[in-house]
């Protein structure tokens, strides 16, 4: 790796962070009345943009292109999993959970299953999901900073974490408001405009690179082209379906995705917001594979051959590398790098807040100190944020896989635990706390068994790939919940009445 600092992206990043702070400070004055609660007149498209900006992380911005660069068609399992999951969420749970009226996963679990044990369990799961998700984001930040400063990954990671933390502290201290619509706009422009320029440089249709990358793929040497176009070169049909299904149920079970349904004034707006949200997310996912394809075009044109290890190491910043390889103006390369960092930072903020909130309110307040005051809990939450961040840093020093793969493990955990608990909690009155606790236990075991025991029992990794365990896991957990609930007494009558009269009535 070249040992030189790239000043342009660094100064541009600092500039963007400062500008977003100022914008946040200016817009703070306008909504002092209801912090975080949006005004009624808000349009569906703008709700959709908020959903999309909440969703787009380093996994979408950097990860997908990397997987496509390495595995061609197999990457579509990620793309479809991360979009089709919204259909599942909207159709099966969106309105019902909203009518239920609980805003976080632990709140829902406690209210529905009438059990503080189940609540704490689901809080721990939500925290672990946040942790895993954050590791992937930090890997993205580390990779981009390593590229930016020409230093090694670990140093870059620490440096990147310091910068993001300083930014979060300042933004939090000044109570700067976030503008999700603007955030989405910045991210999507930072992604698509450089892609158009890359297509132009390589001589493909630049207006819709989303279509022209197909031609680019077919013009590669036949062997390479066939490998990327053929569905089963890099994974069996089972692996593809299992991954796609896991990401879908994971999307429907992710706490921070679900809570998006409540920041909107009413149910109908939330539902229509999803349609727009999916479109906005789609814009990014239609484009992402093009980076991977154009990277191969350049490699072929320039006669460069990467070893599998080199390709693996570059995959997560292939978006930036492609722009650099084809010789884009440094400003546009920097825009890509900044977009990736911004996507990661905003996701980290959301996740750390969720995680720290769960530690302070669901674990500390419930289990350790029920007499704690609000200001005391706030201090605990701040401390928890720091502890979580350090924990993530330690894991991210040796990232266990690609950004998209690490993220997928978080989805597998959500799909194996929270998804069944939500699903049965809404659609089956008989599901009770014993069933929920048993189900979450089995789900946790299914998620982590292939990771922890995979080396001893290789069969386990074939049947339950760590990224894709929910195809088998979710049905097994649902079955466990049904059996255990049947064997134990039904939930109290007032809960079942509530389900009938509130959750399943117009």
């Amino acid at each position: 790796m070249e040992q030189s600092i790239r000043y342009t992206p660094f100064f541009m990043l600092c500039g963007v962070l400062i500008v977003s702070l100022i914008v946040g400070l200016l817009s703070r004055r306008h909504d002092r009345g209801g912090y975080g609660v949006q005004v009624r007149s808000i349009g569906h498209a703008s709700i959709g943009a908020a959903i999309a900006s909440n969703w787009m992380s380093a996994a979408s911005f950097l990860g997908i292109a990397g997987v496509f660069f390495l595995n061609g068609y197999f990457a579509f399992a990620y793309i479809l999993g991360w979009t089709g999951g919204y259909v599942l969420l909207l159709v099966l749970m969106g309105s019902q959970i909203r009518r239920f009226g609980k805003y976080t996963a632990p709140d829902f679990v406690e209210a529905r299953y009438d059990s503080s044990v189940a609540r704490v369990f689901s809080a721990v799961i939500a925290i672990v999901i946040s942790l895993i998700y954050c590791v992937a984001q930090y890997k993205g930040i580390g990779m981009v900073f390593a590229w930016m400063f020409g230093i090694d990954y670990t140093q870059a990671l620490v440096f990147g974490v310091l910068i993001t933390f300083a930014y979060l502290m300042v933004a939090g201290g000044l109570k700067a408001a976030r503008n999700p619509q603007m955030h989405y706009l910045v991210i999507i422009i930072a992604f698509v405009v450089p892609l158009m320029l890359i297509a132009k440089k390589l001589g493909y249709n630049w207006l819709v690179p989303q279509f022209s990358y197909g031609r680019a793929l077919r013009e590669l040497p036949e062997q390479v082209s066939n490998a990327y176009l053929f569905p089963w070169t890099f994974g069996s049909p089972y692996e593809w379906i299992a991954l796609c299904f896991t990401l879908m149920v994971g999307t429907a079970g992710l706490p921070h995705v679900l809570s998006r349904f409540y920041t909107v004034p009413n149910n109908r707006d939330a539902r229509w917001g999803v349609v727009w949200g999916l479109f906005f997310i789609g814009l990014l996912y239609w484009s992402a594979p093009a980076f991977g394809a154009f990277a191969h075009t350049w490699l072929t044109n320039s006669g460069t051959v990467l070893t599998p290890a080199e390709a693996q190491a570059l995959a997560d910043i292939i978006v930036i590398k492609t722009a650099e390889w084809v010789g884009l103006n440094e400003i546009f390369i920097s825009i890509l790098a900044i977009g990736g960092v911004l996507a990661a930072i905003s996701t980290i903020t959301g996740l750390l807040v969720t995680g720290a909130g769960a530690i302070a309110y669901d674990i500390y307040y419930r289990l350790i100190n029920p007499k704690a005051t609000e200001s005391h809990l706030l201090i605990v939450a701040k401390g928890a944020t720091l502890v979580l961040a350090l924990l993530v840093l330690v894991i991210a020093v040796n990232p266990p896989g690609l950004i998209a793969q690490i993220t997928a493990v978080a989805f597998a955990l959500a799909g194996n635990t929270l998804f069944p608990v939500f699903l049965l909690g809404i659609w089956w009155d008989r599901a009770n706390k014993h069933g929920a606790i048993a189900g979450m236990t089995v789900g946790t075991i299914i998620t982590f068994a292939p990771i922890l025991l995979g080396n001893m029992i290789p069969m386990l990794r074939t049947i339950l790939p760590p990224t894709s365990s929910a195809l088998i896991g979710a049905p097994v957990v649902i079955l466990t919940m049904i059996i255990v609930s049947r064997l134990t007494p039904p939930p109290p009558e007032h809960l079942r009445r509530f389900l009938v009269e509130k959750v399943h009535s117009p």
Partner: protein
Amino acid sequence: MSQTNEQDSPSRKDLRINFFRPRPGFMRKEVTIIWITLTAWAVMTFGMPIHLALTHSDPTRTLAEAPYIFGIPAYFWFSGQFLILWFIFLCFIFNVLIDWLSSSYRRRR
């Protein structure tokens, strides 16, 4: 629940909620809409890779014989681009149907 749609709602003693045996009235219609959407979702998403797995096992033959659209094999375009459109379309249709259902129930009350 108000008195007017008494014949529509099951007895107040019956508190059973089951996706596979929806309560008469609003919930039954809602579940029908959910089934339609979910079927359209599952068939297109998982039917396609299953079809590919059954029919396409040899790369060179596959790519020579598969139908092409926009210059790439049709299945490739289908998974990479069409399905996302399909998901958006499904959410749209679902919303239209649910809007219609809830407004018809609101009027009845």
